[in-house]
């Protein structure tokens, strides 16, 4: 038997009995950031391919969600800071060692760029729209000429944004559940998959929906593969990682992870999408919502469970 006790009154809020310094805003932000990254990736990718005409939802409509998601996500992040008045300090330094620092800078660039992207399409989608001031109108028209350039900038940025949501966690080697190098790619793929699901859900174009059903299926496949890979990594790891993995295998987070993330968030919607591709009638919203919920719950599980895992005590 091994037991450790605190003799002195160590009752630090949010740390004892176990660490809980990051609350619900963090997983919500990670989800919205991943979703926004995925949507931007698809929008810029198909713009570069010159598919604006045939892929209206992907290139023109879905990106409207991006600035909203990013602003709500940033508000959530801001809400979780305990020293809010000093938040501007993030932008007086750039520290490449700190994922949070370069993530903040990437967001600083991507958020306004995504707003410009959306603005260049507003007049096209809502013909009665009036910008009121000619200077705004002219600026936006100027930007509209350079959509391809913006797409080339946004494509790598969206990948960085998507992968950073995972690297943010994996950089913490004090939390064995997070400390594995596959988390970045896993969060990126999951973000792309939630974005694909949202596109399927909102698209009115049959061909577009069909294509994204296929894309989402592939992404779900990759995601499952990475999850297995991550589990095998834990199993081959030191005892702290085995203890971390035990949370997902018989521990407190087993049911949420396997039932809500893997079965209801990945396998079941994948089965529905296959059924649809084989010609059965499935309401598109169902698998799409399941993938989105699964993606959100996945981030909650990772953030909450990760904070329980540790080296001492």
């Amino acid at each position, binding site marked *: 038997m091994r037991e450790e*006790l605190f*003799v*002195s009154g160590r009752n630090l809020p949010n740390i004892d009995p176990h*660490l809980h310094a990051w609350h619900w805003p963090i997983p919500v932000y990670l989800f919205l950031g991943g979703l926004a990254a995925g949507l931007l990736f698809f929008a810029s990718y198909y713009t570069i391919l010159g598919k604006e005409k045939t892929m209206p939802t992907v290139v023109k409509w879905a990106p409207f969600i991006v600035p909203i998601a990013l602003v709500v996500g940033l508000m959530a992040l801001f809400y979780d*800071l305990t*020293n809010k008045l000093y938040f501007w300090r993030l932008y007086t330094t750039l520290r490449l060692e700190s994922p949070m620092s370069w993530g903040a800078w990437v967001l600083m660039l991507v958020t306004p760029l995504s707003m410009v992207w959306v603005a260049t399409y507003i007049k096209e989608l809502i013909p009665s729209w009036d910008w009121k001031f000619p200077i705004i109108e002219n600026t936006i028209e100027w930007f509209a000429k350079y959509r391809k350039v913006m797409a080339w900038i946004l494509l790598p940025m969206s990948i960085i944004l998507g992968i950073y949501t995972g690297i943010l966690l994996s*950089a*913490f*080697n004090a939390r064995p559940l997070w400390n594995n190098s596959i988390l970045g790619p896993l969060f990126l793929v999951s973000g792309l998959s939630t974005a694909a699901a949202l596109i399927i859900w909102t698209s009115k174009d049959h061909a577009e929906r069909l294509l994204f059903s296929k894309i989402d299926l592939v992404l779900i496949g990759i995601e499952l593969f990475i999850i297995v890979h991550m589990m095998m990594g834990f199993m081959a790891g030191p005892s702290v990682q085995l203890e971390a993995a035990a949370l997902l295998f018989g521990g407190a987070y087993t049911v949420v992870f396997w039932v809500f993330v893997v079965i209801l968030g990945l396998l079941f919607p994948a089965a529905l999408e296959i059924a649809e591709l084989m010609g059965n009638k499935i309401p598109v919203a169902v698998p799409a919502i399941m993938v989105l919920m699964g993606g959100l719950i996945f981030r909650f599980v990772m953030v909450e469970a990760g904070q329980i895992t*540790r080296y001492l005590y």
Partner: protein
Amino acid sequence: MRYGMAIDTLKCVGCADCVVACQTENKVPIGYCRDWITETVDGTYPLVEVELRSERCNHCENSPCVRCCPTGASHIIEGGIVLVTPEACIGCSACIESCPYDARYTHPSGHVDKCTFCHHRVEKGLNTACTSVCPTHCIYFGDLDNPRSDVSLALKNRKYKALAPEAGTGPQIFYLI
């Protein structure tokens, strides 16, 4: 110069004087602490070992808290002491998440706080508050690079360990066993 601390687990009686001294010296808000006492019980009766330890920030050589800090509020000063500048800290808690020793907490005024190795005293050549106050003299503090410092002499003839060295942070607090 590299400040470090050695704590004799055989002499520590777990009185928590170091905790109180720190709270007083550093005006730690009521209900919080920068150091604390752990009692480890290992084994099965009748072969039971009890170890008492005074724990705090390890002023890690390879400090993850400094690395992950997005604003540079967490930094290392001369002598390897890890400090937080309250006016630069945004309270993102990244450093709390990154510390394997759970040595940091959020101060009620919003910034993150932790043991400073009493650098304001050390600068003047004094010992840390916890070292000065310990009734059993079980805490040794000083320059690890100086072979004649209290801490180097304490480590010289005794077996010692650090906590969770496998976390890879290079802790600078050693426990004499």
